[in-house]
């Protein structure tokens, strides 16, 4: 390989060195033993809540065909511990830090974004408006376009750093929610969080995860996510971060062709700890093979 392929991508004012980052909740500081954090596009820690909270009952994960259900909930040490420990730990690395925020009300989203969105070590915020594990039978902010709009607009007022709205796929029209987030001031959209799902052990008749329902991730959901990325790209010009079932470079390329500018990798890291850097390498190989000079040239090139 002689050619210098351009892999950098932009999310609002932020430039990432390459389009591959971890999915929130499937990445932790301890993984540095297995993975060179300085090679990835950005660091995205587990979603943080304002107050410490315990998460859900165990068992918290179970396996399904080509996927897994998690009902971790947001086990969190709260904002103070995050500021004191998590941010310094991650800002030691040479890549942008994107904080994922989970909150129980719009006010709380605003309050947390005010703190984190004005912190010198944080480069962007991902607003997890989609976590299906919260109380309320899986209901989430991101299921309602008006709520999404209001939430984004209010958060937009308190910070200037790029805002990424992480959408939920458990909606009738991802386009409506995407448009609302765009209008509300989002700089990018993560498409999407997990599909609300359930599995039952037929011997015990008990749900396989403690919280009854949980979020489905992994290759099983990829065709749904590719569809939503494509649909979202039709209605907004915002950069899209594809998420859900990326196991290898080919999956990432598929999402990019559908309309994504970047991808997140979650479950794959549980199987191969170096999945993130493997995906980057495989994207690079694809660019070589197809002589693509700039990864941005591939975004949305699906031939209809």
């Amino acid at each position: 390989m002689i050619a210098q392929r351009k892999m950098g991508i932009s999310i609002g004012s932020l430039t990432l060195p390459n389009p591959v980052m971890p999915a929130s909740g499937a990445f932790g500081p301890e993984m540095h033993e297995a993975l060179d954090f300085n090679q990835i596009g950005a660091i995205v820690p587990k979603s943080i809540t304002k107050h410490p909270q315990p998460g859900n009952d165990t068992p918290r994960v179970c396996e399904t065909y080509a996927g897994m259900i998690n009902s971790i909930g947001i086990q969190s040490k709260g904002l103070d511990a995050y500021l004191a420990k998590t941010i310094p730990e991650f800002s030691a690395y040479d890549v942008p830090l994107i904080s994922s925020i989970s909150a129980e009300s719009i006010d709380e989203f605003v309050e947390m974004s005010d703190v984190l969105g004005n912190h010198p070590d944080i480069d962007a915020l991902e607003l997890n408006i989609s976590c299906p594990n919260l109380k309320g039978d899986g209901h989430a902010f991101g299921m309602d376009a008006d709520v999404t709009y209001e939430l984004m607009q209010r958060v937009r007022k308190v910070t200037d750093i790029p805002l990424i709205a992480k959408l939920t796929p458990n909606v009738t029209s991802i386009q409506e929610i995407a448009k609302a987030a765009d209008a509300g001031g989002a700089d990018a959209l993560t498409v999407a969080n997990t599909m609300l799902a359930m599995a039952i052990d037929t011997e015990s008749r008990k749900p396989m995860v403690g919280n009854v329902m949980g979020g489905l991730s992994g290759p099983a959901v990829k065709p749904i996510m590719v569809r939503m990325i494509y649909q979202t790209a039709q209605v907004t010009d915002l950069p899209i971060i594809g998420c859900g079932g990326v196991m290898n470079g080919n999956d990432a390329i598929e999402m990019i062709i559908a309309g994504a500018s970047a991808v997140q990798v979650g479950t794959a890291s549980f199987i191969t700890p170096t999945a993130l850097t493997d995906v980057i390498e495989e994207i690079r190989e694809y660019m070589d093979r197809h002589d693509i000079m700039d990864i941005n040239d591939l975004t949305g090139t699906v031939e209809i």
Partner: protein
Amino acid sequence: MMKQHLLPILTNVQVSERYWHMTIDTSNMNERIEPGQFFHIRCSDNAFPFLRRPFSIYRINREEDTIEFLYLVKGEGTKDLTKKKPGETADLLGPLGYGFKLDPGFDEILLTARGVGIATLAALAQEAGRKGVRCTAILSARSKNDLLAAETLQDFGAEVHHVTEEEETSGVESVESQMRDIIERKDVNALYTCGSRRLSRLNQRLAAEYGLPGEIALEEQMGCAMGACFACVCDLEEEGKHRSVRVCLEGPVFPLEKVVIS
């Protein structure tokens, strides 16, 4: 050390009705392995099963540079693991977690293990044998056939007692009286347990009563086994307060008295 290793399988054989035994060549692995640690193993190359499965190290052969696993064939994952053949490669992530602490002051220890917990405590019995610590083990299982796999504990010099459902000897009361007898008769220094909630509670009770230290190896459903996903949590009670810990990262071995058994 969270590292993925692709290592040669030396043997993989059925040792009783439900149990299999696998030997791995670790000559290309530098990490030191301690009893009580585990590996997160990819049981097949198929899309399903999908997640790795955690297995304790059953036996560590430092001279031959091999390790052994003893596993119960339970579901899809372990069924697929039985299909791996000598000469093929095992995909292991680890060694992971913290193992047992065998205090140099201990002369006499008592292990109580149930089911696959036997595999976990075997490596400790081996270590005890190596260090000249006398070791008694009460092994509990469904059937005598299930215990066949555990005969090696005797090779390590442990005195082994069997209790089974089959013989109706595995009730908590029966195990309790055996434990009391051994603790008192042999002047046991520490208790170790794995594999059963009922036996864990019993161990906690007797440890408190006799003022003995002890350790417990926990099993929890795991996702990443790298501390990232918070799937494998349990609570420790410390100074009256509950603290959530990740079994994969901070365990799987914990102080007996601290673990909150749900």
